[in-house]
């Protein structure tokens, strides 16, 4: 890989099970991301997606292996890696401004009040909450709360953003708007983003790379799907792209059938050398715009991904 900004190297997570046995959520997981890339993880509940995110955030430690960010192995949490929580996790006794200011003053401890407030306010404006800065979280709708969560994460100008199903609790309309904003902000600021989602369309719209994980326990990263859609894609004409359905069907086929059977069907799967699926690229067998869209397909290992 040319630029391995984030590299997860052979991590495992095991929990002590009943009777001295250990339950392994996943073993020997390898994964890498380039700077400025937006990656989504898709997999069924229990495959350890959240555990991977928590390990990346430093909230959880792997039982084995290491995570390297920007050339350094991480130990614990860092202000370089901001987390957007599924449940927004705003402090309910603080106002919107105070919630964001809490993050700002945690990063820049020497700043005075006025500077912290001005900085926090600029990020509240960025997520479109101007005018609500003195409200408490209980007075906000679910979408507005998650906007505050996004503003808080962005306000510390992190090197990467980690999102654990940030929009899953929102209604479809709000979710769409927030996806647009997150995409806009990530493109503008060149953020590296790692997002967990259950929503295939969300992954297609937002991600440059989609990680497909098999079912746990003993989950593995089965494939890395590269998003063939142009970077300047829009929500409205997304589905008109010739490769859209091929991509979507590939992911859905994986979730519906292959996530269960992958381990049995692919005995030679090398976790360090996960196949990269490039839908519609020359030399690949998948149909780009035709009848054979539903045919599942795996490419050979990509030489670039070898760690």
């Amino acid at each position, binding site marked *: 890989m040319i630029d391995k900004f984030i590299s997860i190297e052979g991590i495992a997570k095991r929990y002590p099970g009943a009777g001295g046995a250990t339950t392994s959520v996943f073993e020997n997981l390898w994964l890498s991301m380039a700077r400025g890339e937006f990656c989504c993880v898709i997999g069924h509940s229990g495959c350890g997606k959240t555990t991977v995110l928590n390990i990346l955030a430093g909230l959880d430690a792997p039982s084995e292996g290491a995570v390297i960010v920007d050339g350094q192995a991480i130990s614990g949490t860092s202000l370089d890696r901001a*987390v957007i929580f599924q449940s927004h996790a705003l402090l309910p*006794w603080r106002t919107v401004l105070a919630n964001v200011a809490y993050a700002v003053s945690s990063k820049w401890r020497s700043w005075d009040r006025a500077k912290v407030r001005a900085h926090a306010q600029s990020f509240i404006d960025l997520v479109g909450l101007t005018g609500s800065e003195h409200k408490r*979280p209980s007075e906000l709708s679910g979408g507005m709360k998650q906007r505050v969560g996004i503003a808080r994460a962005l306000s510390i100008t992190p090197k990467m953003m980690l999102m654990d199903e940030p929009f899953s609790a929102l209604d479809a309309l709000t979710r769409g708007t927030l996806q647009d904003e997150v995409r806009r902000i990530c493109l503008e600021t060149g953020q590296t983003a790692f997002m967990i989602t259950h929503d295939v369309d969300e992954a297609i719209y937002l991600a440059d790379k989609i990680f497909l994980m098999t079912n746990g326990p003993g989950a593995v990263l089965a494939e890395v799907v590269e998003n063939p859609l142009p970077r300047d894609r829009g929500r409205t004409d997304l589905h008109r792209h010739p490769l859209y359905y091929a991509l979507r069907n590939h992911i859905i086929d994986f979730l519906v059938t292959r996530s269960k059977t992958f381990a049995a069907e692919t005995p030679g799967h090398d976790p360090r050398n996960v196949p990269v699926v490039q839908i519609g690229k020359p030399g690949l067998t998948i149909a780009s715009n035709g009848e054979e869209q539903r045919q599942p397909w795996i490419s050979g290992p990509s030489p670039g991904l070898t760690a």
Partner: protein
Amino acid sequence: MNSSLRLRAGLVSIALLAAFLGIWHLATRSTGTTTAMSPEYAKLMGLTATQGKSAMPGPLDVGAKLWEHLRRPFYDNGPNDKGLGIQLAYSIARVGTGYLLAVMVAIPLGFLIGMSPLLSKALDPFIQVLKPISPLAWMPLALYTIKDSSVSAIFVIFICSIWPMLLNTVFGVAGVRKEWINVARTLEVGTVRRAFTVILPAAAPTILTGMRISIGIAWLVIVAAEMLVGGTGIGYFVWNEWNNLSITNVIIAILLIGIVGMLLDQILARFTRMVTFPE
């Protein structure tokens, strides 16, 4: 709707009070001359024998006496004759001192126990044994070691009010939502700042609830403690007036104990509302 409900409830309360006072008055009034006796003998026997008056004072007697006390709350005619204001002030001062000492111990200790699973497990058996001990059972030990009855009363208040605060603080601190702690962790907030900016505000409603239970218990216990140690305070006043057979004063003291207890509870309730946050 809401205001009319409050108005109606207020009217019912007043009616109930009037009914209670009326029945009380009728039950204790004089029934007229019962037996003929010589005036000297009648003077010796008092109204109970001559007029059929109940030994229980009526509401008018209590009201008159209460008015007398309220006009002169702070008089001091020596050890056994002090104004009710002075007696209440002694009790409140003892409760306040013992209670504040308990706050200073229980809340930091509760924080430590709540944040450390090791301490929590290690101290649990001690707390479980010490908690159910009646605070008055400590009195002889306190008198023997402290050798001062007034300080012993304060110690008894301390020991009785510490448990609800300690347990509620532990419960509140240990129960702070993981996601709020995770927010502080991802922001690299240090332990001390995390304790003050996340754990304390999150646990404050639970801690204040413990403090509110404690002040109620402390006020219950002070009356009994002062009956034992004597000298000053509303508890001593009750027992002294019982020895004087002044049931009127006993009733007045009971009423005042109730009112002060209610005020203490209301103060803590107000503090609790101040730190409670809507989610």
